[in-house]
């Protein structure tokens, strides 16, 4: 369960060592787009050494390169006990299969204590269309929408209103929910537009996305707030659970009927609030 994940370029030592400071629930160390061709090797080595030597208490995700030149080397280097998930860009059936087979191999060879999950980054029309098939594959721990590449693939303009990604958001949220995995929304790329971020994140949450990626630490507090239950929601959920404990079946609260689905939602709200230390 996460609300926010912060992209951190893996070639920048200063940013690596402060990655865990900003209250993000997860960090995505990026070996792909944030790192230029000539720095790929250096970034990979730096990240491996960083993960070996630094103790960070949040989920660690690494975005690898889905490119024959670096794919194997990236997975081979980062498949360690400190890795929680691999974010696979331009994910398709073949690359997911390849990544899984490498992960299984290294987990076995290195006696890793836990299984590393896969998060496909869906950023093409084909990937969105095949979301059900891709997310049904083994080891899928979540899914992320990549809006920039998706709109480029579609040949359409990326806008702040997000109208062009309405369908991908809805589809990803729906399929992720069906498979009980987290749906991570695409980052909002204007780091100086706080109001725009709030609007964009709220829209994503309303459509059922469960978390959002951030490309700047300043975005984290807004994302965490929007993807966590509000104080009013928590208070109402607690009241529902309290009354449900004393009442069998359907009951009424504040003039509204409370039945089993609402009680279940209240339970999830309280669970989230506890996890995020809101209560």
């Amino acid at each position, binding site marked *: 369960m996460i609300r926010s994940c912060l992209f951190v370029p893996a070639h920048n030592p200063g940013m690596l060592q402060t990655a865990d*400071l900003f209250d993000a629930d997860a960090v995505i160390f990026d070996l792909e787009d944030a790192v230029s061709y000539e720095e790929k090797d250096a970034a990979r080595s730096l990240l491996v050494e960083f993960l070996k030597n630094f103790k960070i208490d949040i989920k660690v995700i690494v975005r690898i390169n889905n490119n024959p030149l670096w794919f194997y080397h990236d997975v081979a280097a980062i498949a360690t006990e400190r890795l929680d998930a691999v974010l696979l860009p331009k994910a398709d059936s073949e690359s997911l299969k390849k990544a899984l087979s490498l992960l299984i191999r290294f987990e076995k060879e290195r006696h890793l204590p836990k299984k590393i999950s896969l998060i496909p980054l869906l950023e093409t029309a084909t990937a969105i269309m095949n979301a059900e098939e891709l997310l049904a594959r083994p080891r899928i721990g979540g899914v992320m929408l990549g809006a920039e590449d998706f709109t480029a693939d579609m040949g359409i303009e990326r806008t702040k209103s997000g109208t062009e990604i309405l369908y991908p958001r809805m589809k990803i949220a729906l399929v992720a929910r069906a498979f009980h995995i987290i749906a991570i929304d695409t980052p909002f790329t204007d780091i100086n537009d706080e109001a725009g971020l709030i609007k964009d994140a709220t829209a994503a949450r309303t459509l059922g996305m469960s978390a959002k990626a951030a490309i700047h630490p300043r975005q984290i507090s807004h994302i965490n707030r929007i993807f966590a239950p509000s104080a009013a929601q928590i208070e109402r959920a607690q009241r529902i659970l309290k009354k449900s404990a004393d009442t069998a079946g359907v009951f009424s609260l504040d003039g509204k009927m409370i039945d089993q689905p609402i009680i279940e939602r209240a339970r999830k709200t309280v669970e989230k609030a506890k996890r995020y230390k809101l209560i």
Partner: protein
Amino acid sequence: MKNILNRFVPAGFTPYRGLIDRNNLRPRLKRRPAVNTGDKLIDSVSDIFDRLKISDGMTLSFHHHLRAGDRVMNIIMREIKRRNLKNLTLAPSSLFPNHELLSELIIAGCVSKIYTDYLNGPFASVIGAGKMNDLLIMDTHGGRSYAIESGDIDIDVAFIAVPAATVCGDGNGYTGPSACGSLGYTISDMLYARRKVVVTDNIVPAVKTKEIRKEYIDYVLSVDSIGIPKKIASGTTRITNDPVGLLIADNAVRALAATGVIKNGFSFQTGAGGISLAVADYLKKYMSLNNITASFASGGITEYIVSMHEAGLVSDLYDVQCFDLAAVNSIGKNKRHHAISAARYASLSEDNIADKLDVVILGATEVDTAFNVNVTTASDGLIIGGSGGHADTANGAAITVIVTPLLKTRLPIVKERVTTITTPGCDVDIVVTERGIAVNPLRVDLSEKLKSSGLPLMTIQELHDKAVAIAGRPQQPPHGKKPIGIVRYRDLSVVDVIYSLKE
């Protein structure tokens, strides 16, 4: 001899004892009005030197309100060079990289001693190499004023750059091509130097506010230009964009809020560094949200502090130097934006503003596990700054907060022992970094209040250990053995010695 901080003190100087004996302060000299009562306007530097008989061994002073845009000290240094004067003592309130001619004058023996509060420039390596005959004396802003008032710094001629002046010597810094706002650091020089020269590029018929007063001015030297306007505004007055800096600033304001000090009528000072400005910004938001109004803000005034004043969040601004043009504009128009002298700001001989502060936010180049702060030298001993008002306000304020990243590039900032002590640890209450907040054990009251704040509290030793765990234990670069300078506290006692650089 060693002082209470276990630092060497050269013979002839008073060691720092930890407490200021306010009952035994040095008496003030009598103010020295102008000697010249005839015509004052002169347009030749050489003529001024002749009339004032400026000769070997004299002490000349300058102010730094024009910062890196200052041309006045360079004009005077060129004349010193031309005349090949020897063994002069210079007493500028600060030195900047544009005063590069100083290196040549030191090496040639023209300048043999310097008193200043801040020093940054290529001449630092010349002084660090031990090429100046006498010691460099690094004072605080309040200390410099106190030293001048008490005769410890005996100025023969003060050269006072004034952006707008009359032919009689009245003037201020509010208008003109080199407007810089408050001229606070030069007031002691004007009152107590033996002879005083206003240097200006803007003769005006009259000035409304007379910061510089004709009865103390012997001559008015008219020159083409006293400053480079673009370089007069400080380069440090931009709020940080660095997320780590913003996190530190946020933690600092949350810590202050937890102490309960941010309440109606409180007073504060923030510096002009990026993190300090971010603190001002977070403080502004906190005060607006909670309907809190401060009684005053002081120090170097910036656009951010002016915006708080204009928004009704701060009643009065006590301004010893304007850090940016917004502050310069404000001091000329806002009635409760007061220009104050360095003496009023922080001298022990006055009922000073620094001693009335509730909160001061300061930066650090290094902090050690005894809470001592260095803002004077880099870890290799090269002089890169100086106290300015750091030690004055840290001593005077009820709560002193140091904001600093735990690491800068790959170096831990919290160390076992700072290279040079600028501000003694007993004057520092809270150190805020991105990974934790340490409260000085002397401040049990603050520790108690912060306990339930939810902030990441730890001991200063734990902060140090965390830095070392991340970056490793840095080796202390070796320095030379020759003392080349001393750092004085606001009561002129010696807190530390600056050693020569390793050859």
